[in-house]
């Protein structure tokens, strides 16, 4: 049975790219969210095996979303997607409960490695 993923990023472009990489590796994309608020709502509804989470988003950002999701589900498996030069924010995200991070631009191999780490 395929493992399920919730993809969170405010850019359709990025969501499409990540979804394609994961789908081709056999994951099932069960939801997409474009801000932290939608991410929290969809996580509660879909209970995905994995979440990929962007940091900079309108309304509610990635770090706050991680905090909320982990407060409700300490077992949540969240992979942060950050842009280059955002080390401080990545550290905050890990402290809030994210398990690992990948840096844009994505290389499929690196993405899949990070996903494996988070799921194991």
């Amino acid at each position, binding site marked *: 049975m395929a493992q399920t993923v919730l993809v969170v990023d405010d*850019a359709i*472009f990025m969501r*499409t790219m990540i979804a394609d990489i994961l789908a081709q590796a056999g994951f099932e994309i069960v939801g997409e969210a474009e801000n932290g608020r939608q991410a929290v709502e969809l996580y509660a509804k879909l209970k995905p095996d994995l979440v990929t989470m962007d940091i*900079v988003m309108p309304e509610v950002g990635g770090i706050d979303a991680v905090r909320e999701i982990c407060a409700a589900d300490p077992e949540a498996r969240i992979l942060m997607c950050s842009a280059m030069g955002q080390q401080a924010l990545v550290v905050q995200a890990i402290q809030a409960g994210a398990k690992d991070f990948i840096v844009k*631009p*994505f*290389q499929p191999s690196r993405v899949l490695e990070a996903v494996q780490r988070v799921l194991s």
Partner: protein
Amino acid sequence: MDPARYAALFASESRDHLATSTRLLLAWERAPDVPPIDDLFRAFHTIKGMAAAMGYDPVTETAHALETLLDSVREGAAAADAALLQQLFDGVQALGEQIADATGDQRFAALTATVSTASGTIAPVRVARQRLDRLGRLAAELDVATHRLIRYAERSADDGLEERTSVVRRVASAMADEVAGARLTPVADLFARLPLAVRDAAHDLGREARLETAGDAVEADRAVLEALAEPLVHLVRNAVGHGIEAPAVRAAAGKPPEGVVRVSAVRDRGGLVLTVQDDGAGVDRAAVRARAEREGLADAGAVLTDDDALLAMLARPGFTTATATTRTAGRGVGVDAVLVAVRRLRGTVQIESLAGRGTTWRLRVPVGVSSVRALLARVGRVTVAVPFTGVREAVRITGEGDAYTDVRGRRLAVRSLRVLLGEGEGPAMGRRPAVVVVGARGELALVVDALLGQQEILVEAFAAPRGVPAWVEGAAVLADGATALVLAPGALT
């Protein structure tokens, strides 16, 4: 990772973020106390992320530099003053140009700021524009074809045939209406680029100017609006660059130092009317005449009093009275490009200029592109159709063979369509109907045998055989199955 697959997504999202950035910067300029730093940051940040994924390095670097600039404001290391704001404006311009280079789509260089309007809870569907064009064409053809089918059915004795074709007709007509409706776009999309154009022109030339718009909700076919996008920007820039005076000059003339450029859209029976009006000094007619005389053009003096003559002069390719070129004005490519674009849409352009008061440009175009409302007339054995947008009025004139006639106090040149179409002389008539049109150099009265009413027609342009004059645009199949010659009066002299 194959970047080509994501190029379309990159293009459409970048377009949205560039438009948002422009809108935010303009709002910031109007309200300096509330700089929208976070929203701007996100827009640049998103473009940076996508560009990095696509390998568009120059775009990534510029977006990153813009982020850094905003960060320095956030941390208090830099003041959010006019100079910084201008740096941001320049940066967004550069971003657009770099995206244009990277994607090969030159529209980015002009910052197509079509505002994406969120419409409630239902997301709009994206349909490729070519598909929409093809749908429009097919729907219009189907409509005309069923017209002819109905006429045929009416003449036949078969009752069943008439009833069935009537159903087809009803559905085809409804479909044509729906497709036409799907192609309709509010003029607000067209107006979206104008605030930045006014702002840049004013900044470049030391003017103070603001834009006012009206009729934003008026709708027209998207192809019509796309064709008018560049011309409208030209006219608006000209209004600021050539029309509106320097603040000190305006103050001395008792005007408020900030000039107003007013762009409005109205629908009337003939189509869409776009007006660009400024409250500046009016066109410098003396300078236009002097320039015309220097170029050895005949009848240069007419520009002093005749608006049509003035327009004809301004529209000559390369004509300019400016002595220096800037980003904004003086390149002399504006007005004739406007006329070409409007004529291609089978529309007309009019100018009104009052010294010391301002200039008004009026563009009249059809609302749709597939079918056009036209005035039909009989000329010998030929039926001609003149698109409404080119028609000023229909009159009756006396005097056989006169070269000129007077219509409501205006002197118009007379042309006989019988002669132009080689139909020979008709029977003598005391008063003949004539269609007053906007020709290449002013109004003309085209004499016809009889007026036959108006109709919505589908113009079929043809690859004209040699010898067909420029003022014959194509042919159309009429509702009764007959064919009509479609005229382009803008090419008549």
